[in-house]
Structure formats: C-alpha cells, structure tokens
C-alpha cells in the first residue's frame, strides 16, 4: 500500500499495533487491538492510549491533522494482521456513527490497494454485501482474498 502511514509496533502474538500520531496537537499514542470474538473471528478496536493509565480510550477527539495517515495505518494493520493469521476474519464497527464513517473512509480511501488482498463486506439495510463506495454501512467484515 503506497499511501503515507505510520510505522507500527506489534507484539509477538500480532494482536496489537501501536503507533504515534504526530501533528499540531503533539504526539498522541494510538493503538489498534484485535480482540477474539469467536473462533478465528476478531474485533478491531482503535483508540488513544491514555497518557496516565495506559488504557485504550475512544472518547477523545484529537484532531491532529493526520486523519488520512491514521486511516491508511489502520487499513494496513488489517492487511498485516490477516496475512499473519491465516483463515481469520476481522469485524469492525465504530462506537458512534462518526467513528463508523471513519472506518468506511479508511476502506474507501485505500480500496484500490486493498481489494486484491482482502475481501470486504459491509452491513447495510439489514444484510451483508460486498463493500461499495457511497453506501453508508453499520459494520464491516474482512478476510484474506480467497483468490490469493
């Protein structure tokens, strides 16, 4: 994927991707966590790491002027996670409509690069369908492209 993104730090299990957002509001520690929901099914959680407690939080708006770079970093972390965890599936939905829209933009902005690698579906109007730009989805699900 060619878009500018942050370097990420992951653990040996490959279920956490940490990176630092750098912008006018300073350096903000962010984390992407893949949490098991069921066998081989993982939930994607993106948040800011609290400076004092180290906990992952979602209730802060950082506005650090690097949204596209963060979205490309999230998209790449999903590609990397699925390439390292064979046969796994990633589910993602925002905590709010605005956050879900961010995930949607993350996919749409990187769709050209993602589609040869991942198969992505979105949930809208009560059913799952292959991801299309311009549809407002409630949730997303991704797995490695079976054609690979």
């Amino acid at each position, binding site marked *: 994927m060619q878009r500018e*993104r*942050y*370097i*990420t*730090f*992951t*653990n*040996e*299990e*490959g*279920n*956490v*991707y*940490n990176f630092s957002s750098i912008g006018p509001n300073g350096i903000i520690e962010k*984390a992407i*966590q893949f*949490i098991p*929901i*069921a*066998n*081989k*099914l993982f*939930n994607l*959680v993106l*948040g800011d*790491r609290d400076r004092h407690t*180290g*906990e*992952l*939080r*979602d*209730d802060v708006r950082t506005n650090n002027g690097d949204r596209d770079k963060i979205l490309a970093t999230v998209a*790449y972390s999903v590609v*990397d996670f699925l*390439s*390292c965890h064979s*046969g796994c*599936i990633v*589910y993602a*939905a925002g*905590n709010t409509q605005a956050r879900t829209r961010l995930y949607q933009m993350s996919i749409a902005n990187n769709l050209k690069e993602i589609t040869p690698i991942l*198969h992505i*579906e979105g*949930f809208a109007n*009560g059913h*799952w*369908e292959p991801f299309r730009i311009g549809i407002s989805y409630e*949730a997303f*699900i991704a*797995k490695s492209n*079976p054609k690979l």
Partner: protein
Amino acid sequence: MARNNSRKTNRDGVIVVKHLRDNSNDPFPRMKTEKAKAFIEKHGLPEGFTNEKKKSKP
C-alpha cells in the same frame, strides 16, 4: 519502546516488540467487543465468512 527488545520484520513498516501492553481487558475494548458479539449473534456472518470446515467428499 522500540529501541530495546525489538526486531524489524520484512513486513513493511511493522516492528515486533516484546512485552507490548495488551489492552483487550480495558473497559472500552471489552464493551466494544461485547457489542460486536451481540451484532454477530443477531445478524450472523456473510456467506463465505463462516469458519465451518468444509465437509470432505466421500
């Protein structure tokens, strides 16, 4: 963080670090994962996304 106990991988822009904090059990990720579980239970997974093993032909 990355200077000690870290190794570069051939994965572009990904560095593996030992002893990275796992936030799975923090309140926010736990709450989000419960919501995700409920969503999947209610709506299921799309066709082709289930983890059921294919039955081999006799």
